[in-house]
């Protein structure tokens, strides 16, 4: 496979994952805006910070209003991470690697681009927002379904999955990074109104507010939620689950190519830090520091994959 093709597949799935994650973040922010309008502005600000877009946003808007934030994150062509922009980038990458994709995957990405370009043509009124966010999630699911259902399990598939999980680790870690204070075990706040709202929002940002109740017997407590997001392998957006998937897909590549690369070593190391430990030890290490270091390691793994598999040169 061409190095460029591997890069195109990897980035195509990073961008698709980003579109989906942004839709989830907006959904959680919108919930706050609807139910607790006093907290709306600060919540929208933290959504923007989670998207790593504070500077770009403030260069264009003075106020963290629903309209501004939603517009910026969904359809601003000047924002390279808006859903509109990343959908186009994903589709451009798909065109680049079209020979590596099944017709179904290509058609799903192309359709996603057509549907979302049309949906996001005009500003989204509040009444339409839930439907628009649902469309984004559905289109994502369509592409993922086509990928899982039709692609050969070879190196092409591995590079797609690597893109998905590097992006997803980044997204989940950012969500925790921005709200880590709400997840600290602090007896004085337990059960307070503020904590409950924040916890629910965090879980909604990874679409896990229901699955948490099913999966975790504990009540809503900060450590239980942190454990769920960081260490629970059953949770498809947890850091541990995603790191395990990275290691698994890199393992396929090592077997296929007969050689393990530096990126494999880095991923093994990150994965080891997330396995066989309890959340208490992470609090001891410092939750904020821990998540920060995972963000940096994950970024380094992403760059090392690009080098190891000659995406660019």
């Amino acid at each position, binding site marked *: *496979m061409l*190095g460029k093709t591997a890069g195109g597949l990897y980035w195509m799935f990073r961008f698709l994952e980003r579109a989906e994650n942004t839709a989830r973040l907006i959904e959680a922010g919108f919930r706050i805006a609807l139910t607790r309008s006093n907290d709306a502005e600060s919540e929208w600000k933290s959504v923007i910070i989670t998207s790593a877009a504070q500077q770009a946003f403030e260069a264009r808007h003075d106020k963290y209003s629903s309209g501004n934030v939603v517009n910026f994150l969904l359809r601003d062509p000047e924002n390279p991470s808006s859903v509109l922009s990343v959908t186009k980038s994903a589709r451009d990458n798909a*065109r680049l690697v079209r020979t590596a994709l099944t017709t179904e995957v290509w*058609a799903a990405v192309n359709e996603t681009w057509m549907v979302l370009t049309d949906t996001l043509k005009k500003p989204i009124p509040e009444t339409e927002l839930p439907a628009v966010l649902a469309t984004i999630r559905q289109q994502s699911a369509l592409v993922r379904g086509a990928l899982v259902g039709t692609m050969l399990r070879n190196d092409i598939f591995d590079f797609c999955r690597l893109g998905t999980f590097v992006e997803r680790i980044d997204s989940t870690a950012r969500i925790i990074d921005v709200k880590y204070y709400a997840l600290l075990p602090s007896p004085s706040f337990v059960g307070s109104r503020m904590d409950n709202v924040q916890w629910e929002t965090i879980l909604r940002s990874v679409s896990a507010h229901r699955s948490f109740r099913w999966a975790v017997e504990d009540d809503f407590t900060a450590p239980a939620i942190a454990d769920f997001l960081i260490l629970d392998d059953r949770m498809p957006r947890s850091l541990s689950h995603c790191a395990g998937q990275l290691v698994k897909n890199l393992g396929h590549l090592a077997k296929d*190519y007969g050689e393990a690369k530096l990126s494999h070593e880095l991923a093994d190391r990150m994965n080891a830090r997330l396995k066989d430990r309890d959340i208490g030890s992470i609090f001891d290490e410092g939750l904020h520091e821990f998540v920060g270091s995972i963000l940096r390691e994950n970024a380094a793994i992403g760059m090392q994959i690009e080098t190891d598999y*000659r995406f660019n040169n």
Partner: protein
Amino acid sequence: MNNEFEHFDEMLGATGARPPYTGYDAWFSAQDRGRLAKKAAEAEAFFRRTGITFNVYGQSDAEERLIPFDLVPRIVSSNEWARLSRGIEQRVRAINAFLYDIYNRQEILKAGIVPIELIAKNAAFLPQMMDFNPPGGVYTHIVGTDIVRTGENDFYVLEDNARTPSGVSYMLENRETMLQMFPELFSKIKVKPVSDYPKSLRRSLEASAPSTCDGRPCVAVLTPGIHNSAYFEHSFLADQMGVELVEGHDLRVIDGHIAMRTTRGYRRIDVLYRRVDDDFLDPMTFNPSSMLGVPGIMDVYRAGNITIANAPGTGVADDKAIYSYMPDIVEFYTGERAILKNVETHRCSEPDALKYVLENLADLVVKEVHGSGGYGMLVGPAASKKEIAAFAAKLKANPGNYIAQPTLSLSTVPIFTKKGLAPRHVDLRPFALVSPSGVNITPGGLTRVALKAGSLVVNSSQGGGTKDTWILED
């Protein structure tokens, strides 16, 4: 503009459907119009979803457009096709012989049949190709011959596309679409399949590999990238052949060979089907600012370590000034009369011809010698007085840049419209593959159709559409 009924219609003669169309005509008459209209809309949605699009140059948003597809097929009998394909093969062989001669002994120039200035002053002539024999002796691995028809037995070659002809993906996709939309038609009417083209193309390219290549040759398609107007076709052909689609920055010269950067390291390429123009192929030899090519590829080529298809410098055989000499060229190399006719062509570089052309602009079609895609041409009968005057000025300023031809009364084939069938002008581009083992012409081709009533311009960049082209079994 000319009256519609003056034109030869390939489907409907004075006494009903012409023989190749009788089966289709019977089927069509029994169809519900509403159902057909629905099918047409489905076909368009299918093209959009699968991204069968082209990019239009010179448009600000540079977005992709669909080439409109018409659901009435263009049908050619097996006898008509036999003659056409014999004529194309003869021409293609002559073109290859001509190119070999031009880049070696130049007998045809010495014999005074083609004037030497036409070659010496031709920008498509590449001195780097002199005294070099490309692998297998093949220059034009892929040729698309543009053919028009004016009557029952009158076929003319309008253009020989010997550089990088495009459109074959539409030949294949149009057939797939027809098979999906109207499967029942193909059980009633026996149409020769076109689906072998990608396999034949790969085989033909492999057969043209350098003689030093051992094992199965590695073939790749070189594209300028996703913003090129024909990118869809490039990726389609690579995919259908099962070979890599590369860009210049994926390639480099390693140990005297061209190699592509893969996830496992660099891998050698033996045959490069390039869809990048000569000028951009090698910044060390041609346009130094080109980012689309491979620095040093011409050295590798001249060392005999890669096949470039089509060979650099083939453009010298297909410009519109050389075209006017094609009947002589065919006769010179094959010893036979040309089977397919040439359109009478006035070379504006010649004073008498220029005078005639200027006096008759309103009746002529004037084209740039190196033009393509229907850009920069004048269709006299469809032009206003003002347009003609403006064109005359351009022509006088640089006569050698133009040729003129009579406005042909192109045949029509009906298209499906809301109001029923309506005749529209068509042309035909069959595709010939050339390798050391022979010439292979896929029975079919790309039929382009002018969608505006009376229009003679069929180019997709100018609003033309396409039709599936059926060559009937005996």
